[in-house]
């Protein structure tokens, strides 16, 4: 059932995206924050440091670590003693954490980490795309992508509730586009402390490192056991599918704000063309859709909020009657010439009775602005696919051919 996102203008303030996230983290009452500075994540951790310096986060330790690797490693320890943990990073920092990402999800230690999405070097580039988190898709972390500041702020509390659920117990990344969302000032309802206290219960894990009940964490599992642990992780991801939906609904009941659960839809009713996208480009696409709908173009948007677990059923239900699906990817799987959303979408339609063509566009890499005109051209090309079938399944758009 679609829900109205009731924004209370009286409660809104104009703040930077990073501040809204830091404030959201504060209201979730974390016990340990551990982070290493990296552009464009820095404002979040600076704001949290200021909250700490002003004594505004009780019962919390802030660890100024010497690397991202240690930022997440420290949280492995903190989570294992039962602390609610937080970190934030991006790009190179996330890549450096790669090994720990597997470790933390393998040990089933919940945590929330904001990924301020940014391109990976080389060449060095500090601007936004989503290659960083997409490249960590198999590490066993829940991945949620936000459209605007309100959503990334609210998603922080949602992510804790999902991650800490006893049927899930998997760490979660909440992803926001670097600069585009992290450095934008816009009106937002800062996560309300009283409502968050109501929404997010105290983290009380069943098992912890405790001298009174000395358990061992991180044992050495041979081929007789390893497979079963992987199976259980996958089960947890499947459980998360429902939990993400439930938590979005619970959030709506308490705060009155809703952005979809696993996915969200925008004017998909009777849509011939369904655009699938994640993150901040959603807003621009919605504007383009409104414009084209006024000209009776039947186009709609399927916003993917959860990339891991991948919401196969939810997507199938929406795209079933479309004539073409268009995926937008700020990433590329090199060697496949496709973005991840394109690949995943095709894969969940195969072996089903849904026979809708999928075309993919890779764009917005390394901070290249995604303009209204680009989205319009993509929709034009989608029409051409409806008329004459697929010519190019997946491609870069807005390539500067003249310098190639």
């Amino acid at each position, binding site marked *: 059932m679609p829900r109205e996102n009731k*924004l209370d203008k009286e409660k*809104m*303030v*104009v703040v*930077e995206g990073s501040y809204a996230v830091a404030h959201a983290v504060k209201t979730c009452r974390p016990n340990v924050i551990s982070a290493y500075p990296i552009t*464009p994540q820095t404002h979040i951790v600076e704001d949290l440091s200021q909250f700490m310096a002003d004594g505004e986060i009780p019962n919390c330790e802030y660890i100024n670590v010497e690397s991202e690797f240690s930022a997440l490693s420290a949280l492995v320890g903190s989570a294992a003693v039962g602390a609610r943990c937080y970190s934030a990073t991006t790009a190179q920092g996330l890549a450096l954490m790669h090994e720990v990402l597997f470790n933390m999800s393998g040990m089933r230690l919940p945590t929330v980490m904001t990924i301020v999405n940014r391109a990976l070097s080389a060449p060095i580039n*500090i*601007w936004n795309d989503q290659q960083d988190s997409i490249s960590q898709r198999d590490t066993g972390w829940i991945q949620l992508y936000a459209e*605007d500041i309100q959503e990334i702020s609210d998603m922080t509390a949602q992510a804790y509730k999902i991650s800490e659920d006893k049927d899930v117990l998997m760490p979660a990344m909440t992803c926001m*586009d*670097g*600069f*585009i969302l992290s*450095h*934008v*000032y*816009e*009106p937002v309802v800062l996560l309300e402390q009283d409502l968050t206290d109501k929404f997010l219960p105290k983290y009380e894990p069943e098992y912890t490192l405790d001298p009174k009940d000395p358990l061992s964490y991180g044992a050495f599992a041979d081929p007789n056991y390893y497979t079963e642990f992987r199976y259980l992780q996958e089960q947890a991801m499947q459980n998360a599918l429902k939990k993400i939906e439930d938590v979005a609904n619970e959030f709506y009941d308490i705060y009155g704000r809703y952005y979809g659960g696993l996915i969200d839809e925008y004017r998909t009713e009777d849509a011939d063309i369904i655009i699938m996208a994640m993150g*901040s*480009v*959603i*807003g*621009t696409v*919605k*504007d383009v859709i409104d414009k084209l709908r006024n000209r009776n173009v039947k186009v709609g948007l399927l916003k993917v909020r959860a990339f891991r677990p991948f919401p196969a059923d939810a997507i199938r239900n929406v795209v079933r009657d479309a004539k073409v699906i268009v995926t937008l990817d700020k990433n590329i799987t090199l060697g496949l010439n496709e973005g991840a959303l394109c690949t995943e979408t095709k894969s969940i339609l195969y072996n089903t009775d849904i026979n809708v063509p999928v075309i993919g566009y890779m764009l917005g890499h390394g*901070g290249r*602005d*995604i*303009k*209204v005109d680009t989205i319009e051209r993509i929709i034009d090309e989608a029409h051409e696919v409806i008329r004459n079938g697929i010519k190019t399944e997946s491609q870069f758009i807005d390539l500067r051919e003249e310098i190639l």
Partner: protein
Amino acid sequence: MKEIRVHGRGGQGSVTAAELLAVAAFADGKFSQAFPAFGVERRGAPVLSFTRISDEPIRLRTQIYEPDYVIVQDPTLIEVVDVASGLKDDGMLLINSDFDPETFDIDTKAKILTVNATKIALDIIGRPIVNTILLGAFAGATGEIQPESIMDAVKKRFPGKVGERNAEAIQEAYNMMKEARI
């Protein structure tokens, strides 16, 4: 929706100007959005920042290519940056300068206005910080924004004496430019 582009140099507070404009616009009951042109510029380098103001919630996330208004914090930028790039014909270009608008050879059909924000800053604040003063001038020249909203935003951002003096300077710039309103 109105789109504003602010040209400045790193360290001159152009990002803060865009932000304060967004805060003030929201206080006026509009929706707003402010963001820098994200770069690795250091102090002194030319920088850009943007503000959108609208009666409806703003979803658009592109940079601003065809602004309604352009604010230039430092006239020396005109030599090195195309400050009028994409500026709408019925738009306005506001330059911090003690010269008359006609002295500037800028390729635009939009109206050019100048305000000697540096002088106001030195007279009232005692330091050549012009970002907030130009917002006062902008409010006066365009009527897009209430001067009180800008002054409140500035006072909140810079509490105490600094904010008070800035507010005084904003009022001064507002009064001067109100007469030149387009």
